[in-house]
């Protein structure tokens, strides 16, 4: 399956919905979206990965790049993911300590409000 991207604002947080496969072929589209959102001064991001079917290290690189961009503006990029097969690559690479990973979008937004 190809990559589908969407985004909306909820309570001042920009939520990015990602569906499909994030790999060396599709990751540039996610990178462009995150850069565009940051350029439009959206520094509080939540990336909803509940419908992501595949994620490789290229996709991880895009997420890390997005995180660094928002942090440069004192922002944050949190993830929503409960799929074990996706979480596994975050654990292998140690990135579970870098990203806030939440079970739901509401939980991720509530955590940003703290």
């Amino acid at each position: 399956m190809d990559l589908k991207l969407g985004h909306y604002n909820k309570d001042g947080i920009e939520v990015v919905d990602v569906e499909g496969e994030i790999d060396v072929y599709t990751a540039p589209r996610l990178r462009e979206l995150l850069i565009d959102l940051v350029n439009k001064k959206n520094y509080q991001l939540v990336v909803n990965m509940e419908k992501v079917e595949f994620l490789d290290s290229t996709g991880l690189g895009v997420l890390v790049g997005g995180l660094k961009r928002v942090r440069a503006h004192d922002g944050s990029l949190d993830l929503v993911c409960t799929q074990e097969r996706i979480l596994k690559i975050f654990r292998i690479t140690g990135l579970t300590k870098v990203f806030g990973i939440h079970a739901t979008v509401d939980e991720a937004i509530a955590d940003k409000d703290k």
Partner: protein
Amino acid sequence: MATVEVRFTPLPAHVRTARLVATAVARRSGVDESLLDEVRLAVGEACSRAVESHRLHCPAEPVRVALTDDGERFEVVVTDAAPADVTVTDAVSAPGPAPVVAGDGAGGSMGSALVVDGVVQQLPAGVGLAVIVGLADDVRVVPSGGGTSIAMSWKRRTL
């Protein structure tokens, strides 16, 4: 002789095809269903790495993927044709009994991240290898011809 062999032009779009073929052959070879996601991800990482190397050094050469079921293990070998002294420098050390053999003895280096304007655009190539080592039962990285082969294998379930 490999059970199935795939050759593809080094374009990112074809990495998904290689993943799908590897997963299908692994399933047919009796690899446990719970390991198929690991096969898919590891093969994708190896092919992505090969594609990036070919695009830099030999875009006209195909990437080769050989999938073999020897009755006990399912093995995937992804071979690139990029100069070995370039592609093997990001080799990682593997824990456990399976040695990772770096062609130039450069084990431990994780390569460099692609950084533009101070922002990480791409993780170091070594991260892909680290992921492979974390997923496969056995991993070997060896020079092959003018390039590099990444061989990874998984035990078959008892039938």
